């Protein structure tokens, strides 16, 4: 490594639509694990190559639990004091993860496909009835994942106006004041705690009900873990997929040749979803730092014990050591081992659910509206600012 060098300022810039900053490609070539300086919490390391990123995500010498309550390098203003599934290491992590793993397996998720198709069908009926132009974020991207995660968890979908408002703030970087972010997370907790209390009166067999039972009958998690888990599932369960539905449709509508390929060969949809997961960066920048619990050699440097390491999954997904012509969208890649859902113990719980939702949404949309197009010039399509994840403020379309 080149010593004595100034750390790079990170993030490299404000997220620009769905583009990945060119510095990642440079770093993959010449400095795969580099020093970075974050807006909060000081300096750390950033890994950009596929193999190093996977190592940091799966090697037990890198801890998430060690970040709790610590002033680690991060993009968010607040120090995270929460213990939730994303901030736990095995065996605690395994204890929690096992409680919900069953509900989110490929098999269980596949059983929800007809329900997802019905929801999307109804939503698109409403779109047709309304007539162009329609904002697809409000009309499809948000209500599909919200309805499904609500039904799985047992959260009343009628409450969406409230929890949407809180959840939007909970994922803010600079879009809201720190006190507002804290208050929103508190509101989400109170809200889930209320649903937990209801389940103690009237047991249910939804995911929240299962967690309540695991606490009350098996003492397998604490009250705080239970409530935080509910919050995490509710927030992660809709913000991510909702933004990606919008981002994927935007990508297709601005890349006509790929859109045409999907229209002529609808069977390509599952492969297209994988490719879009690979190429569309959801996070604005790397988040969820890991702390090295001992000195670790990685990417030609020694990360000393106690240092924080960030990983860029979008950068890993464009590593030419793994993907041929990584900058190009190609729905016919032979293999596509992208890590858009992470890797190792924190690999996304909702990955199969998200895949299914994205497939159903894209298939139905293309089938229903063969002439779908943007209803505004691309420059006028606006992305939200100051958020952890990239997503459109609105996506006006016509047909």
């Amino acid at each position, binding site marked *: 490594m080149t010593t004595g060098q100034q750390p790079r300022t990170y993030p490299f810039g404000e997220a620009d639509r769905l583009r990945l900053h060119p510095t990642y490609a440079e770093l993959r070539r010449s400095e795969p694990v580099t020093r970075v300086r974050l807006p909060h919490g000081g300096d750390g390391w950033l890994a950009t190559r596929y193999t190093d990123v*996977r190592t940091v*995500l*799966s090697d*037990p010498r890198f801890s998430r639990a060690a970040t709790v309550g610590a002033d680690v390098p991060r993009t968010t203003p607040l120090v995270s004091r929460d213990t939730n599934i994303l901030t736990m290491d*095995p065996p605690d992590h*395994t204890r929690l*993860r*096992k409680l919900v*793993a*069953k509900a*989110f*397996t*490929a*098999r269980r998720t596949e059983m929800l496909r007809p329900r997802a198709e019905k929801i999307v069908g109804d939503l698109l009926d409403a779109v047709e009835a309304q007539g162009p132009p329609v904002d697809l974020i409000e009309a499809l991207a948000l209500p599909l994942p919200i309805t499904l995660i609500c039904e799985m968890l047992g959260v009343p979908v009628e409450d969406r106006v409230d929890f949407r408002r809180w959840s939007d703030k909970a994922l803010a970087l600079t879009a809201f004041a720190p006190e507002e972010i804290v208050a929103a997370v508190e509101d989400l907790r109170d809200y889930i705690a209320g649903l937990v209390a209801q389940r103690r009166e009237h047991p249910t067999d939804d995911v929240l009900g299962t967690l309540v039972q695991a606490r009350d009958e098996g003492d397998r998690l604490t009250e705080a873990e239970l409530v935080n888990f509910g919050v995490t599932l509710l927030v992660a369960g809709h913000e991510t997929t909702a933004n990606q539905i919008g981002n994927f449709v935007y990508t297709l509508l601005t890349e006509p040749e790929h859109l045409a390929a999907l229209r002529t060969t609808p069977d390509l949809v599952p492969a297209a979803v994988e490719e879009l997961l690979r190429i569309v960066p959801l996070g604005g920048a790397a988040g969820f730092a890991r702390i090295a619990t001992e000195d670790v050699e990685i990417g030609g440097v020694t990360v000393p014990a106690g240092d924080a390491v960030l990983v860029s999954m979008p950068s890993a997904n464009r590593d030419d050591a793994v993907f041929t012509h990584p900058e190009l969208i190609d729905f016919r890649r032979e*293999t596509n*081992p992208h890590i858009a*859902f992470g*890797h*190792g*113990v924190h*690999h996304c*719980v909702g*990955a*199969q659910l998200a895949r299914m939702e994205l497939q159903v949404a894209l298939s139905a949309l293309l089938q229903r509206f063969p002439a779908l197009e943007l209803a505004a010039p691309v420059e006028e399509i606006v992305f939200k600012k100051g958020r952890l994840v990239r997503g459109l403020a609105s996506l006006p379309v016509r047909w």
Partner: protein
Amino acid sequence: MPWRIDVDRETCVGSGMCTAIASNRFVLVADRARAVDATVEPDEAVLDAAESCPMEAIVVRDEAGRVLAPER
């Protein structure tokens, strides 16, 4: 009473869940999981790995062939 581990490499998506939970029991080979040893002495971590696999690609059986994990 050894247990038998079967990993369906066709179903596996290489999430790395099992290799992280039971690192001495599973390895990723060509992006797919494989049991280090198909037969092991009883080990809770192997059950955890099978229960946590998003694809249910890991099946653990006892000597009599009874499925111990994953629960259906």
